[in-house]
């Protein structure tokens, strides 16, 4: 009897191993075909398993959609020849070293022309040395804390001066009269909220305000009673709260805020990580009336945004929503295509990167342009969460805001800039 257990275990392991190999072989696309003169292989690298899979799979879907749209309309045209885009998709597994490993694999084994990938800042920081060492080419689609400018990375998400800073200005413009220039900062305990809050604190100081409290919750933690006690102590009659929490903690925060009587009527709350999908998960009855700052909202209503929303819904089902990170991910595929066509090559990465700067595009959010610091100009918008799970746009910046990578509020980076068109060794961070 006892001897049969190891055997069964072995059988079990064998069965699992078979299962794992079967699932691991999926994905990818066969090259060539149709009326194309050739094909260009690109890489997609997002977490398809683990905690980040919920968010990152939507980026993979929208990138696949952009590739399909480009192929359906004739592919990439270089010297009157048309190329079909094929892609290799890899799973970063919500594990940052895996992102670096898979990047290496995509570059060396698959010989891709470009990689679209990442979500968390931690995954980008893990991938950066790989792309710099191999002098390769990465597109990163998420709003992030800035303070980085790599020759080998193009960033299509917002930096703080395109999201957090205008949001703080807006809060003070609208609520400073009633509550004073005082803010309370709540965030998850990792690099993005901590860096973003450093910037916000400096900005608040320079606007003549005070940061009365700052608190961080470990990722995934759901106990916010001490924070509520502190907020009520600092703001007995209401005040401005800025929320940079990520993931599950948001649900706990908004549910317990409501129970404790911290309502949007008395406490204006601005969130930087709550988009349409998160409203659905937290429940509109808890987030309704709070504010969010993004560059794209599904409810934007312009013809370009409607086309984007309809295309996505047609491809993935009418119960789905689009959001800002998805729009960024969609844009970066088109930006790369435009740069390749302008450069007339997809193999000479230096030429493609040079051609990328100055590319303009009519994105779903409106006109965008790639700047010499490898970030794009974005229109900033502030929305209020509504009961139907969408945002009502209350304010926008009218014109696209140019990206500032090295933050000008933070003393350490004040006066520095990044410009990759300059021919100097410190083009990534030079003193202006």
């Amino acid at each position, binding site marked *: 009897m006892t001897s049969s257990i190891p055997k*069964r275990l072995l059988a079990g392991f064998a069965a699992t191993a078979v299962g794992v190999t079967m699932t691991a072989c999926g994905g990818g696309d066969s090259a060539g075909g149709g009326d194309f003169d050739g094909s260009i292989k690109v890489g997609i690298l997002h977490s398809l398993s683990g905690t980040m899979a919920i968010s990152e799979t939507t980026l993979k879907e929208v990138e696949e959609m952009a590739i399909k749209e480009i192929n359906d309309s004739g592919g990439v045209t270089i010297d009157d020849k048309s190329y079909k885009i094929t892609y290799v998709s890899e799973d970063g597994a919500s594990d940052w070293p895996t992102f670096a490993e898979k990047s290496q694999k995509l570059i060396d084994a698959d010989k891709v022309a470009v990689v679209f990938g990442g979500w968390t800042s931690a995954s980008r920081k893990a991938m950066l040395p790989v792309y710099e060492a191999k002098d390769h080419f990465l597109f990163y689609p998420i709003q992030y804390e800035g303070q980085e400018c790599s020759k080998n990375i193009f960033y299509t998400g917002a930096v703080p001066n395109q999201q957090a800073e205008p949001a703080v200005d807006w809060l003070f413009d609208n609520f400073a009269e009633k509550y004073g220039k005082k803010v309370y900062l709540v965030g998850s305990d990792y690099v993005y909220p901590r860096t973003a809050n450093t910037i916000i604190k400096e900005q608040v100081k320079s606007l003549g305000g005070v940061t009365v409290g700052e608190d961080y919750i470990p990722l995934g933690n*759901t106990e916010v009673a001490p924070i509520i006690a502190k907020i009520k102590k600092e703001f007995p009659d209401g005040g401005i709260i800025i929320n940079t929490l990520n993931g599950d903690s948001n649900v706990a925060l908004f549910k317990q805020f409501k129970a404790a009587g911290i309502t949007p009527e008395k406490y204006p709350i601005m969130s930087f990580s709550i988009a349409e999908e998160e409203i659905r998960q937290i429940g509109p009855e808890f987030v309704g009336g709070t504010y969010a700052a993004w560059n794209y909202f599904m409810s934007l209503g312009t013809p370009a945004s409607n086309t984007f929303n309809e295309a996505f819904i047609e491809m993935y089902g009418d119960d789905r929503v689009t959001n800002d990170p998805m729009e960024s991910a969609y844009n970066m595929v088109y930006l790369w295509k435009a740069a390749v066509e302008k450069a007339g090559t997809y193999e000479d990465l230096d030429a493609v990167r040079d051609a990328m700067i100055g590319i303009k595009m009519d994105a779903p959010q409106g006109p965008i342009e790639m700047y010499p610091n490898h970030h794009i100009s974005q229109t900033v918008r502030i929305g209020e969460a509504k009961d139907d799970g969408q945002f009502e746009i209350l304010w926008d910046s009218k014109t696209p805001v140019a990206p500032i990578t090295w933050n000008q509020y933070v003393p350490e980076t004040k006066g520095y800039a990044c410009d990759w068109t300059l021919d100097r060794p410190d083009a990534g961070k030079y003193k202006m």
Partner: protein
Amino acid sequence: MDLIFSQLLDGLSIGAVLLLAATGLAIVFGLMGVINLAHGEFMMIGAYVTFVVQNIFRPLGGFAFESYYIIALIASFLVTAIFGVVLEKTLIRRLYGRPLETLLATWGISLILIQFVRSVSLAMVIGIAVTALLGWALQKFLPLPLKQASFASYLKGVLWTVAGIVGLIVISTTASIGRFFSNPWFGPRNLDVTPPKWLQGTWGSIAGIELPGIRIFIIILSALLIAAVVWFLTKSVWGVRIRAVTQNREMSNCLGIPTDSVDSITFGIGSGLAGVAGCAITLLGSVGPNLGGSYIVSCFMVIVLGGVGNLLGTIIASMMLGIIQSIIGSGSLLIAFPDMPNSLRSVVEFFATTSMSYVLVFIFIIAFLQFKPTGMFPQKGRSVEA
């Protein structure tokens, strides 16, 4: 005075959540010595049951919807208890007395359960049912000579593999019929559970301090649950049997106590309590596949601190941890002692965030266990060593 009272209330409510989550584990780990790493996932099942009950009652509206939560509490207890009993009878039972294997097996179960709620669809349920039926039938109708052959255990393995492959084929064919079959029921995303109106908002105030309805409700619920568990263990027939088996399994067996059934019932009750905890947590936090992971560590912390297998220890430990967290984390020491020296003040300020208060709690537990390695109230029986 106001401050102390409100911090105490906060601490009590944090402690009550810990207590709710840890009671079931205290029974399973304390009385049976089973390290159940899937405890958090039982809580998750309880939360998902609450979600399902809510969705059944939502269209009814009015009073029926307002009272759904009570039914959800009962349903989540029953469903997770049945889950627990099935698990005990099929797996845990074979691993008694082997804590390391139990630990690994229950961890595996927790992973399976997480993935199950992520991807369960009608097609998958049909496939699993086909596999189970086919596997059972193949074993049942195997010719007798084959059953007694020397390679019987290999044959059984092969037959189950065949059943599994047939199940996989059934899943993929039914899933290709249409969305009705292939659509996941819950998916990997977090779900939205809304507490009924009477639980939202505040329930009046005492001395200027607002009483959040949810918090008060959870404190009352955990008190009632503890009272019920104590009554069950000390006054009911099965409770007495459970305690007898805990103290001396062989002797109880000799005296005619059905130890097999006692094990099943104990594990079932422990799991059921986890389900109730999961139902209560839907009021406070998110409902998603990863819900369990964030509570399991705190549960073990409470049990180790309180002393394995002792309910009183569990209660005191969870309340203590809750109060430490709330008083340190909210920085009320700074207000209570406004004229402390500057050097001390900066230390207190440093720890007055949620993240750092956890660090402090861990330091406290490590220090405490140096002096009392078996917790506050060490178990006198033998079940833990066995």
